[in-house]
């Protein structure tokens, strides 16, 4: 967790830039999370006031969408696809392997704080299933257990 002054600065900067955008709550939340890695629950009243919404509305949106986090994740987030296409070539076993390798349950963070493991329902790489995405950016296709171990280990050894 980070202290109030640190997150308040980010939240105010984002709100200053986006608060007049029509229907701008999702862009605001994305921008805050991109900067802080999560949306501090204490920031909800600040966001609500700036956007002229109730706290319940802001909280409701944060809790509705899978992407938004109310607490920090590990240094890296690994999404393993478990939709049908990836299942057809062993995604469930791959996800179980990832859990074993990291010593976590799905949605959990490895003890060293390096990796948070999340399921995802389709990365759109279905011709090259099974698919994995790291940090919402790096996509991998035809992922094997060995391949995934290499990716996970490199994330754990990097800062």
């Amino acid at each position, binding site marked *: 967790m980070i202290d109030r002054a640190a997150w308040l600065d980010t939240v105010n900067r984002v709100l200053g830039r986006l608060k007049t955008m029509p229907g701008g709550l999702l862009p605001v939340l994305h921008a805050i999370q991109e900067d802080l890695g999560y949306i501090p629950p204490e920031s909800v009243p600040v966001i609500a006031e700036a956007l002229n919404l109730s706290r319940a509305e802001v909280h409701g949106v944060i809790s*509705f*969408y899978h992407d938004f986090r109310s607490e920090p994740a590990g240094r890296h987030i690994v999404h393993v696809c478990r939709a049908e296409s990836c299942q*057809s070539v062993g995604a469930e076993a791959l996800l179980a392997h990832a859990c074993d390798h990291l010593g976590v349950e799905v949605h959990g963070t490895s003890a060293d704080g390096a990796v948070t493991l999340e399921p995802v329902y389709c990365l759109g*790489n279905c011709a090259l299933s099974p698919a994995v995405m790291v940090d919402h950016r790096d996509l*991998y296709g035809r992922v094997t257990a060995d391949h995934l171990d290499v990716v996970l280990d490199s994330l754990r050894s990097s800062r």
Partner: protein
Amino acid sequence: MTRVYVPRDAGALSVGADGVARGIAAEAVLRGSQVEIVRNGSRGLYWLEPFVEVDTPAGRVAYGPVGQGDIASLFQADFLNGGGHPLSLGKPEEIPYLARQERLTFARVGITDPVSVEDYEANDGYRGLRRALEMTPAAIVEAVTQSGLRGRGGAAFPTGIKWKTVLNTPAGQKYVVCNADEGDSGTFSDRMVMEGDPLVLVEGMTIAGIATGANRGYIYLRSEYPHALRALNEAIAAAYARGFLGASVLGSAYAFDLEVRVGAGAYICGEETAMLESLEGKRGMVRFKPPLPAISGLFGQPTVINNVISFASVPIILDRGAEYYRDYGMGRSRGTLPIQLAGNIKHGGLVEKAFGVTLKELLYDFGGGSRSGRPIRAVQVGGPLGAFIPQSQFDLPLDYEAFAATNAMVGHGGIVVFDDTVDMAVMARYAMEFCAIESCGKCTPCRIGSIRGVEVMDRVIAAREARDPAEAAASTALLKDLCDTMLAGSLCALGGMAPYPVLSAIQHFPVDFGLPAAELATAAG
């Protein structure tokens, strides 16, 4: 200077295209070769990615799948002049997988630099918009109607009729919204267009704006597509810079502004009214219909909502004429469909064909059978809400009505292949689990029914493992009853169609549900 094409498509990147692009650039410097690397879209032959093409005087020559370890030998084989190499694929357009397609919507994907307006225009881009600017809005709508284009997102509603409603609804502000929340497993055609030819989407939406009197557009893009986001934003900036977007589109009296908004990982936001709620900054809760979004949509204003492929099909219809497009296809399914071969398939990728192509042709002639080499047992068409289709029905032609007649759906054209190791009871359980995870919670049949569905499926599987056919039959009967409730009582397609994969699995694969032979006929009925 030789042009070398290395795709920027996310699928190509997922198997190392960035490293190959860097490797080629570095090797060229080392050897003193003059090389210009263009990051194109993917041709859609994913088993051959990274699929590298070289512009030679005799035309483009392809190599693939290229790994970083192949680069030195490609230079040694003089691939910059089309030299022979074990990875040589010849001219891409002569590869049977591509040669046998009818690429209308995907005409430029994999060929051009996706974010270059110059390249786009040099390859017939923006001809549809220029034609539209010479026409009345009503004539544009009429052309789209005459083409027979139906919504490619899955619901297959006639696009022209939707546009006509928006055109004829007076309002101070109207919107054009592109549903780019391509969440169905087994589908990636929207992503390929957005990464490989985003300007065709921009052009299609601009035409929709002119046709309906809307001057503002949004692309609602799913957050799982960061590479598409980058390509779209680059393309939109390029279109603004050259006057194709903004206060006066190509100097005309029409204004059109376009912006990308990113979703947040909710499958339900692919449902059009939930998407509108999300665009308004709210929870993605499904709205009651009526009112139709065409009359009261985004911020309560008349709104055109179409899928990426629907908008991307409009420019060629305006450019070549409605008849040109309508002449492809069968029955009431006109034009072409970008079909996606996914899952356990040897040659997974994008196949754009006129409607009427059969599953068998797609799975074996194009797809080459399963990737595992085992027999294909079932395919799921149309995403997580689509029916499972057994091998006995692989003669089915891709046609909206033919699929609907067997309680299946074409949907967004994704085909997920399963070999004979699949457990259909597990897949049925998953369909219910997915519905439970993704339900918006507004209506009871979907919110509660899906959770009860998972529980009942657990009982079915337990009964099967315990070799208790009576219990399996009783639980399956209960499951079918639950499916009836969801089918009839759900507010939108999530709860209303999640039963299709479940019921089709019971019907076609009763043995997986532990049903005794005597019960099979009843269960299937």
